[in-house]
């Protein structure tokens, strides 16, 4: 079963890469770009069959323990 995880910098923190990408877009002539944030996206393939709730809980624990740095990052989990 596939679980998708998006790890983002907490709002309010400077996203230097996002800011640079915004600058690059603007220099390419794209007007009206208010902001760009660049996140990390992981796809986790779990072995075997999982009930949705237990899969989500398992990946939540992965996020809390390793995948996200709670000081500066938050995460979103999407199943399937």
């Amino acid at each position, binding site marked *: 079963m596939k679980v998708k995880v998006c790890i983002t*910098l907490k709002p*309010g*923190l*400077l996203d*230097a*890469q996002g800011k*640079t990408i915004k600058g690059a877009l603007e220099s390419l002539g794209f007007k009206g770009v208010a902001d760009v944030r660049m996140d990390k996206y992981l796809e986790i393939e779990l072995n075997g069959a999982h009930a949705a709730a237990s899969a989500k809980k398992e990946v939540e624990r992965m996020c809390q323990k*390793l*995948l996200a*740095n709670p*000081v*500066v990052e938050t995460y979103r989990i999407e199943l399937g």
Partner: protein
Amino acid sequence: MKFGVVVFPGSNCDQDCAEVLRDVLRQPVVTLWHQETSLRGCDAIVLPGGFSYGDYLRTGAIAKFSPIMGAISRFARDGGLVIGICNGFQILVEAGLLPGALLRNVGLRFICRFVTLRVERADTPFTNRFRPGQAVRLPIAHNEGRYTVDAKTLPAIQPQVVFRYCDAEGRITDDANPNGSMDAIAGLTNRAGNVLGMMPHPERASEEALGSTDGRLVFESMLEAYAHA
């Protein structure tokens, strides 16, 4: 005073640290492989610079789970001296032994050059050989050196700040801040003062031939602290 320099897969400053401690400071040194679970009676632990685990996921994110970190946590909790340099600092914040996090430099460039630091506290086991307010020159070499902590914690950790980036006259300015670190923080200790993390490399400023010996004072301070413990 016996020093233990920890080696993770991808550490690359361990040899420099060991050589400075052994040949310049003339102290017994062992290297500790990250999978060891004993600190072999070391009196101080050095987490050196480098790219542990290739900086995959986040710098220091995976190294914090290395087997040796259990022994290091207990050693730190019991008051043992631990110094984390560059990647070592990143590992210490990931492991929660120091507050905050180290993010990508604001300029997005890997910066490799000398900086000037102002010594904020000369009463720690790592800085007792400095004068408070002294401006010292050490090199940095990093891509993720932006010290960051949440707005609530930032005032609380000010007494723990040991080094700030400054200009040649010791002034804290935006221009003197190479990576956008909050409050120009280049190095700080835990609340108890026995664990230090710093982004600049004291081991690269311990011999005249490399352009500065200001970094040697960090290790000499540790010897001083140990001698009077």
